[in-house]
């Protein structure tokens, strides 16, 4: 059987940039950052106090209390995004389609707030028993499981955890399942809610988090800024999408992975480059046909020059004609949801012919000498784009997209 082409027919996003994909895109297009003072956690004693939180989120607006009680915030954000993506895709459900609909989610740190609560109860409040829902709230696959139950999807379903690459690995697995015929539709993406004090202490200690804001590729960048959110894509065979008259937002055409096998936190340009090449090879795409790269672009001292070198290694002279932007400057680094937010950003950039900028950009860094679309979105009809994710632990995953219907 020849491989099927795979369409993205719906996207959903809840993030610091808004409660839905439209709000997310409006902020990206305006170059408006969602980074601000963290409100959900008292950051006294931490070296940073800014984050990209989902503001004004009310579980009761989305769930019955008995349903939201079962879920940590990270799972709720995943379900909210999945519902939006499926509604936007206008999927016509049959029992047969439900039986072969996959759900693949990425998550890096799981139910942190719920985990923190059980530790507070046990160590601080000396309670003898944890809340009975602790484990189902904390478990990394909670979002995937809740999405299957909420939407009645009964095909392959699982969660991928590969730190900051989780969502790209998840979307990639879902893509390959739809392409091969192992699934007839997939809801894929990621969700994360890392704002719990104990967890933030961990980030504080690793010293990768900026004390002010995220300035990817700027000479004076000072690190990443944590974010939270959920983002999901609906993937289905291109032919099926066309047959039912669905809008093809974009095509997912390639997926590549690699491991640095190098260092736990210091990234390697050769590993990143191999993942980008693998994605292009999987897509059957010459590097010269790519016009936009949604960078991993964390704004850390280590990532940005490494990523620049990797892009130069893969694209050669064409690197100077590429637009490369880091949307983490706006939606923050949402860890296991990051790749999904960036996939949505990439799909919408292709669809709208508008490349979101690298916000908070101040001055060029000779070590990051790419066209990083500083501060202002740019009109550009781009045919192909890639979206990079490189994880702590050296696990890399890259997605390649083609523009969809006009």
């Amino acid at each position, binding site marked *: 059987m020849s491989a099927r082409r795979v369409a993205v027919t719906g996207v959903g996003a809840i993030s610091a940039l808004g409660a839905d994909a439209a709000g997310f895109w409006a902020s990206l297009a305006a170059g408006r950052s969602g980074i601000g003072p963290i409100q959900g956690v008292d950051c006294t004693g931490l070296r940073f106090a800014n984050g990209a939180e989902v503001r004004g989120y009310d579980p009761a607006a989305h769930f*019955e*209390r*008995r349903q939201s*009680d079962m879920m940590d915030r990270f799972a709720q954000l995943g379900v909210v995004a999945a519902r939006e993506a499926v509604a936007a895709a206008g999927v016509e459900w049959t029992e047969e389609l439900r039986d072969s609909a996959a759900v693949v989610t990425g998550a890096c740190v799981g139910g942190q707030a719920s985990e923190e609560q059980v530790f507070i*109860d046990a160590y601080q409040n000396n*309670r*003898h*028993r944890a*809340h*009975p*829902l602790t484990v189902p709230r904390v478990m990394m696959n909670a979002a995937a499981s809740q999405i299957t139950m909420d939407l009645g999807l009964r095909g392959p379903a699982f969660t991928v955890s590969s730190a900051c690459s989780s969502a790209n690995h998840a979307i990639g697995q879902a893509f390959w399942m739809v392409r091969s015929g192992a699934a007839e539709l997939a809801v894929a993406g990621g969700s994360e809610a890392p704002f719990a004090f104990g967890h933030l202490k961990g980030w504080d200690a690793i010293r990768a988090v900026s004390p002010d804001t995220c300035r990817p590729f700027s000479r004076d960048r000072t690190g990443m800024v944590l974010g939270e959110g959920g983002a999901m894509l609906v993937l289905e065979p291109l032919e099926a999408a066309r047959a039912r008259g669905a809008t093809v937002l974009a095509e997912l055409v390639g997926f590549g992975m690699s491991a640095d096998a190098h260092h736990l936190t210091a990234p390697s340009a050769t590993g990143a480059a191999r993942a980008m090449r693998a994605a292009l090879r999987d897509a059957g795409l010459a590097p010269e046909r790519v016009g936009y790269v949604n960078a991993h672009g964390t704004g850390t001292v280590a990532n940005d020059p490494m990523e620049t070198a990797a892009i130069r290694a893969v694209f050669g002279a064409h690197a100077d004609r590429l637009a490369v932007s880091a949307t983490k400057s706006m939606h923050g680094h949402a860890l296991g949801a990051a790749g999904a937010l960036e996939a949505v950003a990439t799909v919408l950039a292709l669809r709208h012919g508008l490349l979101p900028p690298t916000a908070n950009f101040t001055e060029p860094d000779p070590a990051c000498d790419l066209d990083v679309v500083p501060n202002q979105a740019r009109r550009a009809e781009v045919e192909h784009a890639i979206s990079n994710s490189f994880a702590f632990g050296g696990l890399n995953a890259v997605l390649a997209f083609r523009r969809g219907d006009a």
Partner: protein
Amino acid sequence: MHDELTQHVIAHIAQTHRIPPESITPESTFDELGIDSLGAMSLVADLEIEMGVEVPNEELLKVKTVGHAVDSLARVLAAGAAPQG
């Protein structure tokens, strides 16, 4: 017995599970209310946390009716209050 506590527990169940409070009595089993064992344990846990008490594990597993839950909570509340009284 425990009228106020009974009303409080019923109000909590009504609110979290969207059940009309007038249809909940101390004799109602959680099963009849459509609340499974995990849901029942979760309800009691939420009330324990709110009240700052803990029902012993062995008792928690035996809670089948709203009245059982009220009695269990009343016992630990009384035990907690004992030193002052």
